[in-house]
């Protein structure tokens, strides 16, 4: 049956026009080079990052002369020696690392039930409510949210006001390690839930029913069936939370009040307070190495295949 082109859906006509335009610019259609052409923007972007990294690598090998405020002419490993010998840096790295691990564990423990209820509830209203509650924080930046916690947890904040009503002396809820971790967990939760939800949706409800009929209690179904099957989602979400927490800047800066610096804060101080670009670059490279090592360890323990990156899994 013949149809006039004007009766085709709008989308088809738009696509046809784009194809015609592309053919006019590139008459042969690019042939086998088209896929590479489409890769170019991404390669340029990543390439720029590599160039920046090379500059940082160069800076990390030059020390700052405190009297002349000039960088050394020759490469030296002095910054690296300093990074590994200064107790303050060790404290900051250890604090960041432990913080990231604790935040990851707590976030996954909170995100899993949230995602599970969101995916499994038969109540459409509850599901929508959970989804909106999840997305709302994304519209509010991290810094604004951190300031929100200042208002809520401050000495004259809402929490201390309520505690005051029942006669409790104002508690110091801010500018300590737990406050930073608390802020980070709250910031990471939506990321973790969003990464877990598709993994849980992929587990058929029938599998849980089957486990029940085979004699598994609810808890046994969770531990023997749902959690192992959700492993790729848990690892993916865990990696995202781990790396984002390890490199976070705003939460330690605002909720830590300068007493709870993470690595990113230390790097910021070197670049913008002491203007020691060389030492800052060294710390930045150490942070990259630390993050890469963590990801490497996760892959080594669980295998890259668990992330469903391995095509043969499908």
């Amino acid at each position: 049956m013949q149809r006039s082109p004007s009766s085709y859906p709008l989308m088809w006509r738009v696509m046809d026009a784009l194809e015609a335009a592309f053919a006019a610019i590139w008459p042969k259609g690019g042939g086998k080079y088209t896929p590479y052409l489409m890769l170019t923007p991404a390669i340029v972007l990543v390439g720029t990052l590599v160039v920046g990294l090379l500059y940082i690598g160069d800076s990390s090998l030059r020390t700052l002369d405190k009297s002349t405020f000039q960088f050394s002419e020759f490469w030296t490993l002095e910054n690296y020696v300093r990074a590994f010998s200064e107790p303050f840096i060790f404290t900051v790295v250890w604090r960041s690392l432990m913080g990231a691990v604790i935040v990851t564990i707590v976030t996954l423990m909170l995100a899993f039930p949230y995602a599970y209820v969101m995916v499994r509830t038969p109540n459409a209203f509850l599901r929508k409510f959970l989804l909106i509650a999840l997305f709302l924080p994304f519209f509010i930046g991290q810094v604004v949210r951190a300031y929100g916690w200042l208002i809520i947890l401050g000495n004259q904040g809402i929490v201390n006001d309520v505690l005051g009503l029942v006669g409790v002396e104002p508690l110091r809820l801010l500018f300590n390690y737990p406050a930073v971790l608390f802020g980070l967990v709250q910031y990471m939760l939506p990321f973790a839930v969003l990464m877990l939800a598709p993994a849980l949706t992929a587990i058929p409800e029938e599998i849980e029913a089957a486990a029940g009929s085979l004699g598994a209690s609810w808890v046994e179904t969770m531990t023997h069936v749902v959690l192992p099957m959700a492993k790729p989602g848990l690892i993916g979400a865990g990696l995202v939370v781990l790396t984002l927490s390890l490199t976070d800047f705003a939460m330690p800066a605002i909720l830590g009040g300068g007493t709870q610096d993470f690595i990113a804060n230390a790097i910021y101080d070197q670049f913008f307070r002491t203007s020691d670009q060389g030492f800052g670059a060294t710390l930045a490279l150490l942070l990259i190495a630390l993050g890469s090592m963590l990801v490497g360890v996760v892959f080594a323990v669980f295998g890259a295949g668990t992330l469903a990156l391995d095509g043969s899994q499908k």
Partner: protein
Amino acid sequence: MNTHSIPAVSASNVEMQFPGLLAVKDANFELDNGRFLTILGPSGSGKTTLLRMIAGFLKPTRGEIFIKGKEVSAVAPNKRSVGMVFQKLALFPHMTAAQNVAFPLKMRRFDAKKIPARVSEFLNLVRLDGLEDRRMNELSGGQQQRVAIARALVFEPDLLLLDEPLAALDRKLREEMQLEFRRIQKELGVTTINVTHDQREALVVSDQIIVMDHGEIQQDASPTQMYRTPHNPFVANFIGVTNLFVGQLAAVSGEAVDVTIGALTLSGILRSSPETAVLGAQVRCAVRAEQIRISAALDALGELDAAFQGTVKDVIFEGERLLYELSIPELGDDPVRIFHHDQNDFATHDVGETVHIGWMNRDMHIFVAP
């Protein structure tokens, strides 16, 4: 069979009311130990809902279900002794075949030392020996079916439930698995309830069939009874291909009744209850496509109680048989469908040809319209 023994499963006045939908209405049935029951019905007939209530995934809104004489409405699925093979099998992809089969034994706290022997015994039963360590994605569709069966049976449940597990298989494999189910069921003597929309499967595997439609049990009978004496036009039409004619009741003498269809008077067997058989009542007359004989010459048909002449409208070749669609104006506007099986006589009738058909009175089932 001992009539005093407690049935393996029984349902009394079971009802399932979903918001805005009465999925199962007043279901009553009994199933004896070691028997194979098939619940047969089209999609949306409530057959899966009934099965899920027996499994314990749904709690009936009314009525009681007994397994081995014990009322189970308030018993959770994992506390019932019921093995189930699911529609999509629901095998655990992160476990091997042997781990899948061992799962119910671990969950039901079997003696850990005896588990490996039991697992290999049941993998042997379903002929999967040698594939113990395969993951589910390394097994074929038929092999996955076998793991699912072994997993549902390994803890020796009182009852095996099959929720259309064969629906997704191709025809050849499906027929093979039907016989496999039958073999295993006979070998273990486990009471089984199977749900399907495939009438052929129901006839092949079952000792007892329940036909459901719109949430109601239409008939509960053995396969031969179901086929020979359908209780209503739905059952007659759902099992096999059946021609239905509309007529009026003209005379009743016990089971044998006369009906008028237009200007014709025909005789058949009454399948509705006798008290509904009021003279002049509207009836539906059912004759199966395979019980009508067809020939170019009338005398080649042999002895018949009713004979007609018709014109061939369509011929459909189905391999082992031919399906004719005939126009016979005296019997109404719908084409009359006839299966022709005769392997010795491949003389086919062409479209437009005039042919003779006929059937015996005992093959015409009469149902009084409700």
